[in-house]
C-alpha cells in the first residue's frame, strides 16, 4: 500500500509523520493539486494522510476520496482546529492524528495497526498489498558496491539457526562441532552468494544473511527456497554431521543501518524482530517469512508457502516441507 501525505504547506508539515527520520515505510508527499493528478493516473491501493487546515479544501478532498475504491484516508490536525474528530470516522476516515499524539518513532507500527483494522473491518485483501510500495530509502540497484558503512538501507534479512544446539553440544567436542558447523556455514555462504547475499553475522549455531533490496526483486526468497531444496545434497556431500541437519530460517524485509564490521551489538528494531521471529516463533526445520518479504517472492514460489498465523502484528508464512 502506498502511503501519501497531502498538505498545502508541505515544507512545514513534511516531517510530521516520521519526525524527519527515514522510515521502513516510505511516505510520498504531495500538495492537493498534485494529489488529484496522482489519483487520476493510478489505481493502486493508497492510504492518504490529509493535512489540510482550510476546512473547505479538506471537505472537497474528503468528498473526492470517499467514492474511490482502494483509497483510504486519514486526517492530520496539526493545528488542533477540528473539535470532534469522530466526525471523520463517521464518514470513513481510518486514522486521525493531532499534536497530542507522538507517533514519530512508532509510525510503521501505527500503519500496521491500521492495516490490521482494515483487514478486519473493511474491504481489504491480504497478500496483495505492499507490492506497489517503492521505498524512498536508499535502494542499491547493483548491490553491495553501493552500500556504505553507517547508512540505512532496506534489506531482506534472513536469520538462520542450526537446530538441536544442546544435544549437539553434549555429543560433540568443541573443535569437532566448530568444524561441522563450519561446513554448514560454507553451504549458506555458497548459496547466498548466488543471490548477492552476504553472511553479516555468524556466531555459534546461528547467523544473519543480508540481501540488498533493489525495490523490486525478491531473489533472496529463492535463496531460502534453494537452501532447503538442496539441503540433502549438502547433507551427503559436505556436511560433517552424521545425521541430516535441521535448521530454521526466518526472513523479513526491513530497514537497518548497515555496519560492515558488526560485532553483534547492533541495536535495530528490524534485526530484533527477525531474531524474535527466528528464535521464538519458527519451529525447528521450518523456513518462515513475513508477509512484507513474501509479497516480493517470485509468483511461482508463493504456492509453496502456507500462512501459519501472526507474529508481532505480521502475517507469517511457512515453506511447505519436503518429505523424505
Amino acid at each position: 500500500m502506498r502511503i501519501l501525505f497531502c498538505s498545502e504547506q508541505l515544507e512545514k508539515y513534511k516531517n510530521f509523520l516520521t519526525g524527519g527520520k527515514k522510515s521502513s515505510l516510505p511516505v510520498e508527499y504531495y500538495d492537493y493539486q498534485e494529489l488529484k493528478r496522482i489519483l487520476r493516473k493510478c489505481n493502486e491501493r493508497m492510504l492518504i494522510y490529509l493535512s489540510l487546515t482550510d476546512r473547505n479544501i479538506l471537505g472537497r478532498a474528503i468528498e473526492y476520496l470517499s467514492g474511490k475504491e482502494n483509497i483510504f484516508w486519514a486526517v492530520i490536525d496539526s493545528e488542533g482546529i477540528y473539535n470532534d474528530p469522530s466526525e471523520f470516522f463517521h464518514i470513513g476516515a481510518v486514522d486521525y492524528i493531532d499534536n497530542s499524539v507522538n507517533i514519530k518513532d512508532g509510525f510503521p507500527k501505527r500503519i500496521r495497526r491500521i492495516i490490521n483494522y482494515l483487514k478486519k473491518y473493511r474491504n481489504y485483501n491480504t497478500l496483495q498489498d505492499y507490492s506497489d510500495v517503492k521505498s524512498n530509502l536508499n535502494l542499491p540497484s547493483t548491490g553491495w558496491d553501493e552500500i556504505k558503512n553507517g547508512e540505512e538501507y532496506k534489506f531482506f534479512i534472513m536469520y538462520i539457526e542450526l537446530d538441536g544446539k544442546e544435544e549437539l553440544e553434549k555429543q560433540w567436542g568443541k573443535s569437532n562441532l566448530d568444524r561441522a558447523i563450519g561446513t554448514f556455514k560454507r553451504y549458506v555462504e555458497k548459496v547466498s552468494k548466488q543471490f548477492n547475499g552476504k553472511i553479516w553475522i555468524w556466531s555459534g549455531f546461528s547467523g544473519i544473511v543480508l540481501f540488498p533490496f533493489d525495490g523490486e526483486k525478491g531473489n533472496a526468497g529463492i535463496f531460502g527456497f534453494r537452501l532447503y531444496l538442496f539441503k540433502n545434497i549438502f547433507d551427503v556431500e559436505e556436511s560433517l554431521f552424521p545425521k541430516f541437519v535441521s535448521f530454521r530460517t526466518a526472513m523479513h524485509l526491513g530497514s537497518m543501518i548497515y555496519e560492515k564490521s558488526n560485532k553483534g551489538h547492533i541495536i535495530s528494531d528490524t534485526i530484533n524482530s527477525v531474531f524474535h521471529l527466528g528464535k521464538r516463533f519458527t519451529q525447528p526445520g521450518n523456513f518462515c517469512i513475513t508477509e512484507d518479504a513474501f509479497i516480493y517472492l517470485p509468483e511461482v514460489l508463493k504456492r509453496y508457502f502456507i500462512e501459519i498465523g501472526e507474529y508481532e502484528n505480521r502475517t507469517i508464512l511457512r515453506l511447505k516441507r519436503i518429505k523424505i
Partner: protein
Amino acid sequence: MKISTRLERYVVKALSQSLNVQMMERIVQRIIPRYNLHERSGFPENIPIPQQNAAYQIIGDVKRLGLFLKLIEVLIDVDKNGVMGRTIVIHYLPQILKEIEGLHYQYYDPYGLFIEDSSKKTKSWGILQNGKGYEFTFIKIDIVSNSRLVRNYTGQVIRKTYTDLKRIFKSIIEKRNGRVWNWEGDGGLGAFYLPNKNVHAALCGVEILLELFMYNLINCKLNENLEVRMAVHTGPSNYIFDTGVIHNDTLRRLESIETDYTSPNSLVLSRGVFSDLGGKLAKLFKPFKMDSGLFLYCYSLDWED
C-alpha cells in the same frame, strides 16, 4: 598422450637412482603381471642388468602398452607408502609431476591416479583405451512425452528447452567427474568411471531432478513442466572412442530400468548402485519390487500437501 624426451629422462633417472633392478621389476609387476626384465631386455639371466638399461627398458615397455601414467601412479604410491614396510624415496617426482601437468593431466590424490585436468573433458578422462573393458556406472535421462512436446511447441522453444536440459545434465555430471557419452534429441547418457562412481551418479541424479524443479518454476518456456525419467546402473562395458555405438548388457539393463520401472520426475537405481550408497544418501531412496521380485530404489521430490 605425447611423452617428451625430458619427461622420459626424468623417469629414467627416478627409476635408476631410487630403485635397484630387482625392486624396479617388482614395482612394474604391479601393472604388468609376470614382467621379466631379463626376458624383455635380452640380458642373460646370469648377467646383472645395469640400472639405467633396466629403466630405459621399462619406459619403452610401459609406453608401448599405454601404461606410462600407471607407472608414475605406482612410483607416487611407493614414495608415499614404501614397499613391504621399507621406506623408499623416489627422486625427481616433483619434476615428473610438473612435466605431466604440462600435458594437461592432474594427479588426484584421493583417487591415486592421473586424469586429464579441468581444461579437458574427454569421454575417456584421458586414460581409457579404445576397445578395452572397464567397470562403469551409467546414468540415463529421458524426456517424458518428447513426441508430443515436439508437435505442440515451436522449434525455437523446444531447442531452447532441450539445450537448457543438456546444460543442466552436463554441468552436474562433470562437476562430479562424470562424462556425457551421448546426447540425442530426447535425452542422454552419462558415464562415471573414477572411484565412488555409484555415489556420484546417484547424487547427480538427485541434483538434476532438483535443478530441473527450479528450472520448471523459473526458467522453463513451455506452458507445462519439463519432465524426465532417470535411471542409474553399474556394470562392465567396453570403451570405444565413438561412445554412441557402444551396446552391451549393462546398457540394455539400464534402458529397461528407465523405460519399464521409472515414473516421470523420478530417479531409479539398480541394486548394485544402491548397495554402495551408505547412510544418508540411501535414506533418500525408497525400495520397490520389480516383476522378478528383485528390488529397485526410487527417489522423487515429494512436498507436504
